[in-house]
């Protein structure tokens, strides 16, 4: 296991580290960025009769706790859709609430708002913002392209490689060196193929890389080597 499950790159001139768990680490600002936690997704679907296992919030928080423990960040940015719906924070169990509070203790915490969670109750702690600028980087939920240094989520990028009649599909970061889209961090959040036309609005065709999350490392793959769904 010589390879470290992370990969460093220059993002709009800033040093950025992608880690294989799907979080972005900015060493300069000691900032950890995660996107699309979709907390309380299972309970959201349960309201409509799909009784999915109610463990997704706990599992996602455990992943987040492990990322925070590994980096000990000064600040944490959640890039939107942190909750699967507006009522998510209310449904949050007391234990999960306490775990979030523990994570927030001693550091700055920003909830960037997303389309699933346009508003967050103050009780959930931290700051709320629609957009956040940090040096050369701009943090927002939905990428709009065009802006240099934009860091976003929303699209849940996933990439697929097919060889010899078999295929593998994984969550992935997408970047062209100027912009970055983070994969979803929530355990029950699905993925959208990076070859989908939604990504064409952010990246010039063929001028980006998908960084597929592997078990032991990240795999940068160019679009022409990727398969569609």
């Amino acid at each position, binding site marked *: 296991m*010589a*390879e*470290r499950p992370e*990969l*460093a*790159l*220059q*993002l709009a001139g800033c040093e950025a580290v992608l880690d294989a768990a799907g979080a972005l680490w900015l060493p300069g600002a000691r900032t950890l960025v995660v996107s699309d936690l979709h907390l309380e997704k*299972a*309970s959201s*679907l*349960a*309201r409509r*009769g*799909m*009784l*999915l*296992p*109610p*463990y*997704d919030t*706990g*599992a996602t928080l455990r992943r987040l706790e492990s990322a925070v423990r590994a980096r000990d960040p000064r600040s944490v940015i959640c890039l939107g859709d942190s909750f699967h719906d507006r009522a998510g924070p209310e449904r949050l*169990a007391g234990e999960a609430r306490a775990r979030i509070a523990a994570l927030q203790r001693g550091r700055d915490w920003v909830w960037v708002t997303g389309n699933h969670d346009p508003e967050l109750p103050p009780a959930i702690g931290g700051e709320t913002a629609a957009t956040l600028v940090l040096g050369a980087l701009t943090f927002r939920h939905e990428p709009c392209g065009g802006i240099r240094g934009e860091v976003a989520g929303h699209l849940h990028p996933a990439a*697929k*490689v*097919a*060889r010899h*009649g*078999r*295929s*593998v*599909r*994984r969550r992935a970061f997408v*970047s*062209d*060196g*100027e912009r970055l889209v983070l994969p*979803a961090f929530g*355990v*029950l*959040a*699905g*993925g*959208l193929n990076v070859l989908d036309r939604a990504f064409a609005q952010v990246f010039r065709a063929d*001028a*980006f*890389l998908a*960084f*597929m999350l*592997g*078990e032991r490392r990240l*795999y*940068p*793959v*160019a679009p022409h*080597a990727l*398969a*569609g*769904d």
Partner: protein
Amino acid sequence: MNRPIHRTPPAETLLPPRFGGWFAARGWAPRPHQLALLEKAQRGLSSLLIAPTGAGKTLAGFLPSLVELSEEVRAPGAPVFGPHTLYVSPLKALAVDIARNLEQPVAEMALPVRLETRTGDTPLHKRQRQKLDPPDILLTTPEQVALLAASKDARRFFSRLSVVIFDELHSLVVSKRGDLLALDLARLRTLAPGLRTIGLSATVAEPDDLRAWLVAQSGPEGERNLSELVLVEGGARPDLAILASEAHIPWQGHSARYALPEIYRAIKAHRTTLLFVNTRWQAEMLFQELWTINEDALPIALHHGSLDRGQRRRVEAAMAAGSLRAVVATSTLDLGIDWGDVDLVVHVGAPKGASRLAQRIGRANHRMDEPSKGILVPANRFEVLECRAALDANYIGAQDTPPLRAGALDVLCQHILGMAVAEPFDAVALHREIVSAAPYRRLDWETFERAVDFVATGGYALRAYERFARIRRRKDGSWGITHPRIAQQYRLNVGTIVESPMLNVRLGRKGGAAGRGGRMLGQVEEYFVETLVKGDTFRFAGRTLRFEGIRDNEAFVSNAASEDPQIPSYAGGKFPLTTYLAAGVRRLLTEPESWRRLPPQVREWLEIQREKSRLPGADELMVETFPLRSRHYMVAFPFEGRLAHQTLGMLLTRRLERAGARPLGFVATDYALAVWALRDLGALFADGRPSLAALFDEDMLGDDLEAWLADSYLLKRTFRTCAVIAGLIERRHPGQEKTGRQVTVSTDLVYDVLRSHEPDHILLQATRADAATGLLDIARLGEMLSRVKGRIGHQRLSRVSPLSVPILLEIGREPVFGEAQEDMMADAAEDLLREAMGEAHFGDGADRVAGGGLG
């Protein structure tokens, strides 16, 4: 078999004059089994009729109902409501066909009987009308029975029901569809006490399983209650032979190309030939090859489950009209529908089971007194052995239909919800009703309670969903649905057939999904398309196609320039070799005196094997090791079927990895398993590092299996099916767009979450039960490992043996397993590295990544 023989009274006392006259007018006499069934029905008994095709099974099944209905006295002022007889068939087309055949006697005898079909294709207005004004005989499918039993007015609708007839029962009972039907039958018995059943079946290994299925059971222990049995001995013995070919029989492969000239000659020499194959890919290949040598332009058609429905119907109509000389078909033609004048059945490839072979050969010649004629065409040398074993089995009339397993838990969950949709249920009464169904007779109260809990709130230890419950206990203690929406969800998701999502295949132009309105060629499984990249070629619908891409749930393809497809297998519908035939093949190998019945070249192959290596003993597992081109191979010959071998391969490579043998991959066939490694496996085994006994120890089914299962895509696919059937996630319906990441819930992710938090959840229990017999065939692997314990023979060789050649030739054709997933991504990443070193066109950031970050 020492049961008292009940003498059937003469026909005239059983048959009303109207019926006797009808038979006489047509110059027929009722057959003994038809009368026997009638007589038992008149005594109020349920019966199983086992008869070969052409024995007049259908008429026998309906005769008691027709007689009863013709004699029914309808008191004035007492309106009769609801069907008297329910007929259930596994195929929509069969129900329609039977209805047509039945209309004739009904009309000719002027019986006061109305009969109608009800299937998924029946228009809504007709279905609604049928509920208000039901026919006397309703011909339908298991899914429709479930919907009717779960309707609010089920109690009234079924109040008159006297008889349920199950056609092709042998094929129904082995699936989850049969489980659901058994549960609905239990409900029908509650709604209509005194209900009789009639099962119609082909010959099976264990008739008692079907007899028990047909009647109510009275407890988990002791003897099962059985229905009556009417057995019609098979007519003339089939005239069966293995194709004698002068050509070289190949070592491996499944195309049987070598035998084409002989097959073509056989087609020419007969009126109508049915050619059966095991997979859709084989059907495509054979069809194509036949047309390349079809100098006489004989009308030869293709029929398999993925073709466009319209095209299939045209083939069936042409067949019935007698205008085809040959049809190449997969299992879609195994059942039911009468084809008229088929006088030859050719089975290309090994039959995989003795009973399946008998049923397929029975498709030829529907008059039971004449022998059916069949030719077996083995596609390779191992298949010659298998065909020989099948022929011997057929000769002695051996049957190897699979044993019935306990009713599935996911089906149980679906049924419980259905019963709540019909009307609030009392849990104790429902449990009592359910255990009267044979597949569920051992269902204990605790498991049943867990199933109810699952239906209500998901059955999670963390009781988070009380307020979202789908069913809830009411004041009187009964369980009812909490919202009308739940009933609607149930109706949309009813049934146990979870097709893997299918994509339409549309023919367009090369280079893109150009234009809509290209011709529809049929449907393929989404997971197959997902492995394709643009430009890949494959065989489908009788042509070689180039994959262009996917748009709006359709796969676009163009005609490929080359005839040779790159993607070898579109393997829809593979059957594993039955244990019975596997034992037959093993026996054949150990009895050289029986080899004279094999073709000379196959005999020679076995003789050289005996000389260069040796042959496996009767109960022995033979393992050969040898070096070849800087790799070290191990080939084992368990003959347990491809699925069990694949599971074995996964587990062995894990163990070899731990032992430091550095395995690289493996490939599995129905007969053997080959593993290759960097280190000398022969030397390692000889030194006991590890010993073969330790390597093949049964304990691999413990921790190793658990660890592997955690990430097995096969198990995830099994889980998806269970989750849909049990109603955890909803079906995707045709035409329903895949609207992207928010709507579709990935069952893989749900599986991971559930597995790490509630490993004992009822759905995981259901998934494991399926895996034991299904895609992983763990049950069979376990039996094999315990059988060969202490009987593993190691043959160390300096070079490959004749018996090992076939499987080595499969490498590169069959999927090879190993650490493939990470490798594939590493591969793709390396492509990028090479490129980035050469020409830097990704801009600064990416360049740095490609050059630097990878370490």
